[in-house]
């Protein structure tokens, strides 16, 4: 099942992005980041193409979300041009969009499943809960819909501004665990740890 851009209402959220970057109004760099915000938001709107996919096999759901390849290419080009503030802002903004997309998709999925008297149990993350090999197997049914998506030997998705996970199902209304659980990851200094 494929979900196109019409299923998502993504809104750039300046306070959240500045919060992740740690860029507060008391800092001298704030003016540079604030001045770059309109350009970053405009670039993003022109670049992203949010798409999602859902497949089910043996009571296990596979979810794939992507913003497409353009935002990442844009961020890389900005780094090459030494426009580091804009590159950093756009990169973080893309991540905020992807997280927002994830929240919206989780809500949609929850509604759909609950109507079928099914419930999400655990969220399983590639690289933490299952291997890159299994990740590729789980993605295989979706490959024809996303021919340009690649999963590397170490489980990295291309385009980078993408997300994939699996959800186990239950017949009982368990605690919903459909969002990423940062406590499973070893990267202690990740800026999104408390996102």
């Amino acid at each position, binding site marked *: 099942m494929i979900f196109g851009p019409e299923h998502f209402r993504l809104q750039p959220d300046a306070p959240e992005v500045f919060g992740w970057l740690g860029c507060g109004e008391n800092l*001298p*760099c704030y003016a*540079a980041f604030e001045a770059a915000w309109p350009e970053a938001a405009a670039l993003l709107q022109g670049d992203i193409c949010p798409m999602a996919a859902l497949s089910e096999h043996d009571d296990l759901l596979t979810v794939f979300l992507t913003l497409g390849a353009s935002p990442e290419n844009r961020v890389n080009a900005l780094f090459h041009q030494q426009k*580091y503030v804009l590159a950093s802002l756009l990169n973080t903004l893309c991540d905020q969009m992807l997280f927002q997309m994830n929240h919206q998709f989780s809500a949609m999925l929850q509604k759909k499943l609950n109507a079928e008297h099914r419930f999400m149990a655990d969220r399983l993350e590639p690289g933490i809960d299952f291997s890159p090999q299994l990740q590729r197997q789980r993605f295989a049914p979706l490959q024809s819909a996303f021919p340009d998506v690649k999963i590397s*030997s170490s489980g990295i998705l291309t385009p980078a501004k993408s997300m994939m996970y699996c959800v186990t199902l239950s017949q009982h209304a368990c605690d919903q665990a459909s969002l990423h659980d940062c406590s499973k*990851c070893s990267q202690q200094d990740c800026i999104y740890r408390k996102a």
Partner: protein
Amino acid sequence: MDGITFREALLRGDREAAESMLQAGAPGQLKNEKNALLRELTDGHLRGEIPFCLLTAAAQAACAFPLENRPFIACCGGVAGNTSAIGKGYMLMLLRAWGVPALDLGVDVPADVFLDAAMAHHLRYIICVGFSAADADFIQTLHRRAAEHGIREQFRLVLCGASLTPETLAALPLDYPDSRAAAIAEWMVDTWTM
């Protein structure tokens, strides 16, 4: 830009103002000021007291200093399996700010390509930019191949950005057991004259 110091121009990420002040003279003194500020921001960031956005802004303004015509001393690339260039972008940004001449190898780079670059350019540092736990195997492979070629002592090896615990990093054959880009850049500047 009236009324602001060189330090303020860097902190604001104002490359144009920094360029104007450089053209006005005393580039040696301003370079010292720039490096002192980068060190202050890096140390503060590593202690958790200064957000990375300040380093980003300072790095942008530091590009006012032209790259000196020096041979490369380092190469930087995403390890095989890491297809995203964003982590590498941050690493190269900091090296550019410090004025470290580094060769960009791209992403998804096999171990032999890192070694070929090190041999061809007599590089002193190899910076592998990673992302996942699988990067530990890559480092072991690169280290072993370098030893087989008899060139392991020629360069220092670091892993940037990997999602590894400090204990795992410390157990790898790395020359600096910290995967944070800011820490690596500062360490390279301190050890450049090895």
